């Protein structure tokens, strides 16, 4: 079973639990990598989950303390790229989708991706052509999906995204503080969390992680990504880089954007971000990002675009 087959399996099952997903991934590994070699440092099921989420194939959410997944409806993301139109298949898939897309006589090119289902790209000179292909293949058209998503996402410092919380008690927690200057996690203490301000703390136990944002004597539980960019903004740290020539949107790997911002960036090309080590630091690159999308994304992250 490959990642493509994993998506077929998910599409046929429609939804399931996290353990089911892990079982399916384990079979994937068992079938494809009989020697048991772990290809990456990151567990494969986490890699696949991340990519499936980024590419809009499936949603993973925790309901009632139970993590579940559900496959998203099939969508053809339509983008205008300098006079031509690009269609990117996202969401659920069936075995005949490739045939449907290929039979349209357009520029269909499945692109193999690492730890993700193939990117199914269709190029056309007219948007009408893509609409016909989508209708034939049973796909829903989503025009300018990146912009549409970014148009719905609130910025990272929206107050209602922050959930008030008390500083965790007990000695079981290992406390770390996110350093906006060094862009890493530094050892800290609960006392520092009680006295610090405009800081992001991580309270980690053996089986649990809590991210705590301290601001003005108040404490909020935030997602890791949101908390980091909030702190970066408070410390006026600019981390986003954009190369307009190639449409590359870059971030330090420790500062990945929140899910939907990242999904918008990924859907600009239909490919997951590239990981690269530059000057000893990990950097993720999102390719094919138009300037308008880069600006919108940076604004949501409260960052400025720098070349």
């Amino acid at each position, binding site marked *: 079973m490959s990642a493509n087959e994993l998506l077929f399996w998910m*599409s046929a099952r429609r939804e399931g639990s996290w353990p089911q997903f892990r079982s399916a991934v384990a079979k994937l590994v068992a079938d494809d990598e009989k020697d048991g070699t*772990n290809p990456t440092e990151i567990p494969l099921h986490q890699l696949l989950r991340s990519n499936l989420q980024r590419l809009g194939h499936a949603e993973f959410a925790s309901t009632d303390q139970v993590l579940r997944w559900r496959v998203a409806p099939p969508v053809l993301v339509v983008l205008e790229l300098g006079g031509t139109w690009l269609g990117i298949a996202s969401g659920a898939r069936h075995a005949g989708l490739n045939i449907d897309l290929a039979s349209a006589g357009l520029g269909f090119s499945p692109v193999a991706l690492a730890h993700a289902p193939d990117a199914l790209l269709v190029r056309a000179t007219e948007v009408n052509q893509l609409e016909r292909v989508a209708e034939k293949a049973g796909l829903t058209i989503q025009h300018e999906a990146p912009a549409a998503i970014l148009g719905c996402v609130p910025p990272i410092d929206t107050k209602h995204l922050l959930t008030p919380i008390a500083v965790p008690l007990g000695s079981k927690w290992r406390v770390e503080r996110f350093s906006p200057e060094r862009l890493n996690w530094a050892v800290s203490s609960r006392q520092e969390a009680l006295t610090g301000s405009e800081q992001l703390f991580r309270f980690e136990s053996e089986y649990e992680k809590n991210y705590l944002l301290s601001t003005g004597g108040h404490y909020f539980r935030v997602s890791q990504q949101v908390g980091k960019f909030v702190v970066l903004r408070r410390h006026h740290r600019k981390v986003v880089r954009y190369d307009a020539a190639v449409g590359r949107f870059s971030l330090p790997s420790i500062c990945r954007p929140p899910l939907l911002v990242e999904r918008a960036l990924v859907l600009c090309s239909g490919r997951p971000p590239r990981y690269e080590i530059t000057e000893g630091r990990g950097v993720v690159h999102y390719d094919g990002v138009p300037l308008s999308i880069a600006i919108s994304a940076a604004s949501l992250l409260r960052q400025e675009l720098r070349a």
Partner: protein
Amino acid sequence: MTSPKVPVFAGIIIVVATVGVVLVVLLFARMRARRATSSTAKARAQAETRKRAIEEEARRQAAAAQREAMLAQLAARREALAKRRAEAPRGAPLTVPAESLPQAPSLPEALTRHQVSMPESAQPRDAGIRHSSVVGPSRISIRADEAPSAAENGQGSQSTSSVPTSETSSEVAAKSDGLRILGSESAEPDESSLALDTQPAVGRLGSVPNELGREASTAQSSEVNAEAAPAKTKGGGPEVFAVEPCKAPPPVGIHPAITHSVPEPSEQRESVCFVQVPETGAELDSTNANVQTPEVAEAEVGDSESTVETPPVGVSGPVAITDSPPPRSAASDTIDNAVALATPGQPTDRETASNVAEVAGEMESPADGGPTNLASNPEGMAAALPQGTHAGVEASSLMRGDSHDSPREPADAVSAAEPKALADVVSGDSIETQRNEVRLFPESDSTSGETEPTTDDLQQLSDVAASAQEDDTAAPKQRRYRMLSRNPAQARPPPRQVPSRTVDRGAPVDVRLSFGRDGRCAISLVPRRTDAMPPTVTVSRRGHDLELIEMQEGWYEDVFIEDLGAELKSGVFWEGRSQVGDKFRWSLGGRDVFVLAAHSQLSGFVDTNRLELNERHVVLCTEEMEPAVQAILTSAGVVGTTQFTSQQGAPRGWIALRNVIPRRVVEPPEVADRLDCLRPVADAELTLEGGVRLQGNTWLAGFPPSIRIRGDALMVGEVRIDGKVAIQNNSSAFQSEDWDTLGSHFVACSVGTATYILVEPERDWRAWPAHNWTLGEDEAAAKLADRPSVCGALVMPPAARSTTSASVVVPLTNSVVLGALPGEMEVCKPMHDRTSKHCVGFPAFRPVWALPLDAMHCKKKTSGVIFLAPSLIPAPSRADARRTPLHGGVLAWCNAILSASRKGLVPTSGDPAVAALWASYRDTARLLRRRLR
């Protein structure tokens, strides 16, 4: 003057008085007659009672005399036996003349045959009584020593010893001082185990080779007529059986039950006998003893069979035992067992008890149809064994019979004048416990509702086990007597189904090994999870808590242990409780060699049973075992393995061998050993692998399973799919015509069958608001329905709109979206962030134009009219415009177009067709505007 009426009155009075007197007299007379009648009846009854008492006393005296005679015979026989033993040279079998055996009291002369069997290679030579499962087919495995007299009698390799059952029992009883029956007394006892299989088989005797290569002649040893009083031995000698000194008591464990059933003419009665056996490994015969009389019980001895034909209880008939000891097993010496047979379900009878108590247990006395509760201890057995009773048991056993509903207390069956041992045996409430003691539990019938020993029973067995380890001189323990069931035995119930809840509470722990890119391996323990187990549970491990968290279906997360090597060697046992108090446990047997293979549900390599041909494995073994492991792997054709030591991630003291792909079958040795898991066997299995399996045997169409033969594929002939011959493709998977079409398919070959179904899933995936926000306004929760949401790559309109329109993204400068029809207008809300360049709208119409919200005040150089439609959608014609109902929406639509027109905005596309279209819309707006005026 006297009245003439006076005499009349006087006369009347006289008459009345006279009549009254007469009546009184008659009354008294009647009363006397009644008294006389009752006293006569009482006198008769008393006389009758006295007469019966006299008769009863006479019977008792006769019975007592008979018992005395029997006991005297037994005592004499014991002395003779002891004398023979003392005189016989060491190693020589001890023969006991049949005529020296006591004659059993009268019992029906039915024939009881017991098949005595012994497990094969797994059976230790010194097996002793081994037996069994709690329920199920009954067989009593009895230790038998070296084949008896045949060899000494010059019978070559044929050895047949025929002894009366009672003699065997007596011998067993006499063996209370440490002798063992059915074996020659030798310095190196060649012991074998006899299993008294009480299946109602027709009398036959197996032909079994003995330790010395002799093979008992079935013809000579079998079909012994139970009515023939003297036992026969081939060669004309007396029936013999060897007696061997018992060795020191080995460690013993609780052995399962032996079921001993004695059928009545129309039904079968059963009892369960628990036998204590030494913990000598896996050699125990795990069958039940089921003695059925009159039947034949066959005894399998080692890899051979012995048949013991036993006459029914009380019948002085011969018992033919042919046995041959199994291969010598060093792990199984020094076992002394005794068997006590119990016959439940029949009424206890005093005479029967006095007859049979004797035997090693409880046997039915067909004479009266009542049950015989038998218990034996060395003395009691010796004293109680009559000729013709069940044989082949060692005397150093004790038994306890259970009769749950016997109307009579066992103690009643034995008079106080009888020997204490016998009384103990029969009463069952005080039985000396010695090594190799046997416990008999009645297997409950359907009416009793019991199918296996109770906890109390098991506890008592534990006591027996503990006591058996004690010295022979240990004080006897009191054993509680249990009545035998008198309920008619029913058909044997099926093996008890362990409640699933109990099963679910125990789960194994698997060993998992993964290789990393850094050239190291990581080994973990993966506890399995059943449906009954909680997602998270805390277990105790060596005094420390360990939390198990669900990883995936069927497994908890990996557990990495620092000193894993020791735990792999000694085994793992974890126990934990859920929040509701349910108790769970996990275990892994300790070994020094593990075979790991790819798993269908777990990545890496997971421990499995054994190496399979042509499959890739990892062998994990201790450093001490490595030479032996390597030698076997070499013989299996394994080449090119890679070794991982503790430096590369293997546990301390262990070695992991990677790329172990056996190519050849390795014949296992005659004696099983722990390295058998490294010897591939010539076996094959039909498997369905890969594909996209949805559930069970259902696969996704287009992704069928690969049909393969694992193991030795050469032994598999033709493979057919849906009846069509399948051929192997390049990847060795079998395929045939239409094997991957929708529907059910059936695969068949010589090693198995399989079914798989290919289905096409429905394509009705629906979107749902996976992500939505309130964009930061107040009353956040109330605003959710007014906000768009995101599902995958799809941006969905607010739920409150109940529209199916797709989202449209327009520049923030052109937030007004117009449709083709007058009145179709949507103002996209500007982005929440001023720096954003776009806004999102969800028009309920097909958008054609995007105009500035305030066209009159926009920058003409940077603003324009954006054409949104994928094709040219013409504006309404003049006629349509005239018929269009006018309302505020139409006015707004017209004003937006006219304002942009007045500002001089033009379509940004530069396409003349679009410009012309824009002009037509402008004309239509003007027309409508005029109408509105």
